[in-house]
């Protein structure tokens, strides 16, 4: 039961985590290969048809580049991904801000760091307002920190292995796992290359179908881009998790089978030990059915007590696991607990009824002669 609760707990917790990636967000990204990254077949102009396909959703294009940065105060230098986007990014993707805010419109001299970079550049904390220098393709720039974000990919990294259905997407995500700095980019030139865009679809519009129509349009225009809804990714991960729990469920069945064979043997022996008592009861006026129902009732009381005790123990074990090893709380779902107790009692009853019937059918005189 603890196992069951722990597995259910993972799923409950997972869905909570996963929701944070933004269920109404569609990502459009170039298919990751070297050619695409250098020549850049996706351009600023393309965001127009993307927006049309999304029926007026909020859109932020992005461009990624490698850069080197330095904090002159402590002589710290780092290599990271620089993500050029617009201020809308902060309105589209759910942000997990730990300090400050996202960049406002027109703040071209500001940047937002992820926590990992902030920790290294400004180990004493309070990164907001500090300055740093970056050397990107356009040359050296001086930027002021507007805010610090918790790693937005943290959740995804945790669960990406479960996204069986979208391995291309997973590869993309892994490429973007570089530690990054967000700055505002210039997307006014229609032929400026971009690497993709994030789109928040309007309320009442399905993110998944939007992603599909963008994908279709990209294909029609012969652009090597993929579009995917984050909700779709969440679904895939949940499905993957289901598969995993189902495998664990199979294990459960095997355990159950083994246990039931054990229970059968034990109850056979236990009832055999009571042949004398049962024979005396038979001679004193107990009918066969009364013997069987007596044994069954005793067994039921035992299994149910055992079942509730097991729930108690499982809660204890779950609590221990939670405090020592797990990052999520085991979820004791009532229907799963009922199933476990029901199965236990059912198996117990099945394992009792046969030996009980046998015991009730034996000739009491023969048993008493031997005893």
């Amino acid at each position, binding site marked *: 039961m603890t196992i069951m609760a722990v597995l259910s707990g993972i799923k409950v917790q997972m869905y909570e985590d996963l929701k944070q990636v933004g269920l109404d967000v569609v990502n459009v990204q170039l298919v990751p290969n070297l050619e695409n990254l250098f020549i850049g077949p996706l351009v600023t102009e393309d965001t127009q048809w993307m927006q049309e396909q999304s029926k007026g959703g909020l859109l932020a294009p992005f461009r990624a580049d490698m850069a080197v940065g330095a904090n002159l105060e402590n002589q710290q230098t780092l290599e990271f991904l620089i993500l050029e986007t617009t201020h809308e990014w902060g309105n589209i993707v759910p942000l997990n801000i730990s300090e400050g805010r996202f960049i406002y419109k027109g703040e071209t001299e500001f940047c937002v760091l992820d926590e990992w970079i902030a920790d290294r550049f400004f180990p004493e904390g309070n990164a907001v307002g500090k300055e740093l220098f970056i050397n990107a393709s356009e040359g050296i720039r001086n930027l002021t920190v507007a805010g610090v974000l918790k790693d937005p990919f943290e959740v995804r990294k945790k669960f990406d292995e479960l996204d069986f259905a979208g391995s291309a997407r997973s590869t993309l995500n892994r490429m973007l796992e570089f530690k990054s700095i967000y700055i505002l980019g210039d997307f006014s030139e229609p032929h400026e290359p971009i690497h993709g865009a994030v789109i928040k679809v309007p309320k009442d519009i399905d993110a998944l179908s939007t992603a599909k129509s963008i994908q279709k349009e990209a294909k029609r225009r012969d652009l090597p881009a993929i579009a995917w809804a984050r909700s779709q990714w969440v679904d895939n991960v949940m499905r993957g998790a289901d598969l995993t729990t189902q495998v664990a469920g199979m294990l459960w069945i095997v355990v159950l089978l083994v246990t039931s064979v054990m229970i059968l043997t034990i109850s056979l022996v236990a009832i055999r030990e009571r042949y004398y008592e049962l024979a005396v009861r038979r*001679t004193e*006026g*107990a*009918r066969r059915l009364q013997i069987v129902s007596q044994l069954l009732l005793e067994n039921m009381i035992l299994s149910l007590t055992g079942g509730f005790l097991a729930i108690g123990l499982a809660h204890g074990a779950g609590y221990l696991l939670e405090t020592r090893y797990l990052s999520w709380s085991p979820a004791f779902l009532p229907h799963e607990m009922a199933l476990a107790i029901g199965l236990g009692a059912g198996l117990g009853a099945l394992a009792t009824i046969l030996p009980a019937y046998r015991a009730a059918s034996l000739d009491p*005189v023969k048993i008493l002669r031997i005893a």
Partner: protein
Amino acid sequence: MNKKTGKTNNRILLHLNGIRKTYQDGILKVHALKDINLEAERGELISIMGPSGSGKSTLLHILGCLDHPTQGQYYFDGENTATFDDRQLTLTRNKRIGFVFQSFNLLHRETALENVSLPLMYAGESGIQSKAQEALEKVGLGARLNHRPGQLSGGEQQRVAIARAMVKKPDVILADEPTGNLDSQVGKNIMRVFQQMHEEGMTIILITHNPEVAQLGTRLLKLHDGQLEE
């Protein structure tokens, strides 16, 4: 037949007609009973004597509806027991026959009172506790109600078994050597209990090795090698 009690006024309570019992012991056939004919009237106290292995217990088990004869008919109160199903057999055993086993057959984990209550419980009667207590007092165990068999002497266990047989006020009591393993003083006490029951009009069939005990009966039968003689 009296519908309320299920009892009739047949003069003959037990009637055995040409009863045989053969046990198959491996390839060997043991003829435990050979052509037994017996009629027992209501109120009789019949003693049965016979050497060990002569078939006394076998005969009593058949009379007690605990075992089926291989051949012949057994009429209990005019009804052929061969036609009884499990329910009827159990009911007859439970309400109409009190059986005192040679080896007592008490439940070791239950007290004297609980042991005596057992047949009443299965009969679904009311006032079980007081009836059981009364029966135990009758056999002189009023002070041993909550003792388990292990805490009682052989004679006391025997008396618990007798109390269990009489508590349901059966039509007949079948006792398999109730004084068998007891010294003469205890044996006499127990015989007094049977004597009293007989005086109250109970039908009793008693197996014994002891000629003195056998003399108490209204009729004495001898079983020899599976055959009955007066």
